[in-house]
């Protein structure tokens, strides 16, 4: 198979010359990564605007004529689906996975570059199908991102006709795209590591991306299965999920199906999906923390084990999304237990990040600010998860704003903090230039403080008992007037946070041309991606010869070494070896 050879090839590769092959039909993992990233950020901005519209309605009800109940539900649904699947999954794995895997493990490219290219084009197609649903009769589906039947495909829900069909079709295409990309990532990690790159020498970023990809490959089929079955229920009138029912006064032909079955399938995918997003973020933040604290990641082995353990456990906790779904209540015992067990490896990761800072030499650069911000938001979001995972506490809180606040904290804000940390951290590698630090810091402060101002109060709105997915609260006997004030303040914060992303966009675009040139390895990082002969790395990454790896990815501030970092491709010196052993014995 010829295409395998690129990863393996020892001689230098030359860039394709024509513009089309270089930037459009490119098989270079770095170009594909940027295509993935650009598309993901674009749809992410669409979803950000949708969330702004939602917040306007919630903060200032009865003020906006164009937001009616249907439109509101459509905004909610599209915002959720885009953010979870088309932004986070695509950007973390398709974007950073693509960019970093070959560079960090010392390969010239992915092992199946052609498949990799196809993966992006299928992803783009899925995005186009998804966005096209805004322009069809009835608009996009408004069934909530969970798409629960029966309502997702019945009259009475916005977009029950065209909208839901396009959504399911788009998801199916996305799954194909992800599978093509995912096969590449796992195979590349397993097969194309350079000389000396043992599994335990890989940076945690790679461990996170690798494990997340395996989860994705095994979890997305569940979504595909449910999408196929729901599509048939909708189009051909099968009764997989549809029981005998009377919709808006009309007796339909469905018999005997089980809506809860869909929920099981959906969450069998949906819960691992949380970790598909979280694990790469865990990995990347570990590397950012280590680099900018000039210290090895604390407890590397424990971190790897935690990633693997979380990945494994994530397949047996799904029904904690379904405590009040009407499933057999005895499941509650099992799933509450597994859910709280998963808190242990997760907590260990948090401790180890904090302990990495301890006795470090902390440079508060922009990526580091975001990384530390992540530890804060993730701790907060993780701890509120212990409320919802503990089955009885879920009774009063499920389907309220507490849930919304929790998952935005844990899988919205936290991974996005890491994404920003990662973009700023690797920006000099991708462009060869430094971003503007002032703009970066402004971006950090608005985002970090702003999101906390959004989500901390939102937990309390949920504790009051305000249900999610309500277009308007109206009057009730238990919600005080002041809750509306809180909602208005949340909206204001949300709009500020939304606008402050302009700092980021401006910075990214301005600095491509005007940023200060950085040259090699501006952060003094040890991992392999910073050791390429060219910055930004050229097609084929490594020039004439593949790098050779002699050490793990965290040799920061090694006692006795001249610099406070030793790149992975620097051979171990005699003195160092004896010095190291000396240290060990002492």
């Amino acid at each position, binding site marked *: 198979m010829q295409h395998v050879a690129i990863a*393996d090839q020892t001689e230098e590769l030359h860039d394709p010359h024509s513009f089309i092959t270089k930037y459009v039909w490119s098989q270079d993992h770095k170009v594909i990564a940027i295509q993935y990233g650009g598309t993901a950020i674009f749809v992410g901005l669409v979803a950000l605007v949708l969330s702004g519209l939602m917040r306007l309605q919630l903060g200032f009800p009865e003020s906006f004529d164009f937001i009616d109940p249907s439109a509101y539900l459509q905004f909610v649904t599209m915002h959720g689906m885009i953010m979870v699947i088309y932004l986070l999954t695509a950007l973390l794995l398709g974007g950073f996975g693509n960019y970093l895997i070959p560079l960090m493990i010392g390969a010239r490219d992915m092992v199946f570059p052609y498949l990799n290219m196809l993966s992006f084009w299928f992803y783009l197609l899925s995005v186009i199908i998804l966005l096209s649903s805004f322009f069809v009769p009835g608009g996009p589906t408004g069934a909530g991102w969970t798409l629960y039947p029966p309502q997702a495909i019945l009259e009475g829900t916005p977009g029950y006709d065209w909208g839901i069909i396009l959504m399911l079709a788009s998801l199916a295409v996305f799954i194909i795209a992800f599978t093509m990309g995912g096969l590449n990532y796992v195979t590349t990690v397993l*097969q194309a590591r350079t000389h000396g790159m*043992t*599994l*335990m020498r890989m940076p945690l970023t790679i461990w996170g991306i690798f494990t997340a990809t395996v989860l994705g490959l095994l979890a997305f089929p569940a979504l595909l299965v449910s999408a196929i079955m729901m599509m048939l229920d909708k189009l*051909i009138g099968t*009764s997989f999920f549809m029981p005998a029912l009377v919709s808006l006064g009309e007796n339909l032909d469905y018999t005997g199906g089980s809506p809860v079955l869909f929920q099981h399938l959906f969450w069998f995918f949906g819960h691992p999906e949380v970790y598909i997003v979280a694990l790469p973020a865990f990995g990347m933040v570990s590397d950012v923390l280590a680099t900018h604290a000039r210290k090895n990641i604390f407890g590397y082995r424990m971190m790897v084990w935690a990633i693997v353990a979380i990945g494994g456990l994530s397949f047996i906790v799904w029904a904690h999304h379904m405590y009040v779904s009407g499933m057999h209540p005895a499941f509650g015992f099992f799933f509450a237990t597994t859910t709280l067990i998963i808190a242990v490896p997760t907590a260990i990761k948090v401790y180890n990040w904090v302990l990495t800072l301890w006795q470090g030499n902390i440079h508060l650069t922009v990526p580091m600010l975001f990384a530390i911000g992540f530890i804060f938001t993730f701790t907060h979001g993780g701890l509120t998860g212990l409320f919802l995972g503990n089955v009885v506490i879920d009774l009063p809180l499920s389907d309220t704003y507490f849930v919304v606040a929790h998952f935005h904290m844990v899988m919205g804000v936290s991974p996005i903090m890491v994404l920003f940390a990662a973009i700023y951290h690797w920006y000099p590698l991708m462009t060869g230039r430094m971003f503007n630090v002032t703009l970066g810091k402004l971006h950090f402060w608005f985002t970090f403080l702003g999101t906390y101002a959004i989500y901390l109060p939102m937990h309390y709105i949920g504790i009051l008992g305000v249900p999610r997915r309500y277009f308007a609260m109206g009057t009730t006997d238990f919600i005080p007037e002041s809750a509306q004030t809180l909602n208005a303040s949340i909206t204001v914060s949300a709009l500020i946070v939304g606008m402050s992303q302009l700092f980021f966009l401006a910075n990214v675009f301005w600095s491509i041309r005007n940023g200060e040139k950085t040259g090699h390895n501006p952060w003094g990082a040890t991992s392999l991606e910073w050791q390429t002969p060219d910055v930004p790395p050229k097609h084929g990454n490594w020039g004439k010869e593949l790098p050779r790896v002699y050490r793990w990815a965290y040799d920061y501030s090694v006692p006795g070494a001249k610099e406070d970092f030793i790149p992975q491709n620097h051979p171990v010196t005699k003195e160092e070896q004896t010095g190291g052993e000396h240290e060990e014995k002492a």
Partner: protein
Amino acid sequence: MSIFKTLREKPWDAQVAAAGNAVAVAPIDPQGAARIALRFIMAIVSVLFLLFIITFLSRSQYPDFQSLAGQPWQPFTDPTRLWINTGILAIASLAMQFGLASARSAHLNRAIVGISSAVFFSILFLLAQLDLWQHLYALGFYVNTNPANSYFYVLTALHGLHMMGGLIVLANVVFRVWYDGSPESLSGPLQLCTTYWHFLLGVWLVLFALLTSRPETINALAAMCGF
């Protein structure tokens, strides 16, 4: 288990480091990547069918479910047609194996005979499955009349799609070998295709067993899964 041993390595330890430098210098095996990818594909496809089967068992416990075998008027009580189709698929699988063995021993002509008969029987299988669909349709077993029927059509359709995917890849392999004029490189990719064909045969046998199960068997299986 070596993976546990690997996970216990201390990568910062000088001795482990020296060992690592020594070990991982092996050149990359070009077939290795494809083999790993194939294993993942088979795992993914297995998960896909497994999830369908689990939902099948779960769905079978609702009162409106009427399995396709067990009563004289139900189509798969007499599974002769299914046995014929299974036979065709098994021949395709054997032909692939024959082609592979011939390619390995550098009997190019025999290899071509093997591959072409595998393709022939695979397509014949697909046509036979289509005919089976029409047969069921003629009997009035439509897609939406009963969940058991829905599952039958969905599962056979998915299996057929995977078969077609395999045919496309096989065509690509053959074409490339022929185009490159390097028949000696045929056996590697052919090995993977053959594995995939056997895998599809295995999947089909499981589906076959499931679809022709009597209600008692299905209920017993469902009970084992806790439905």
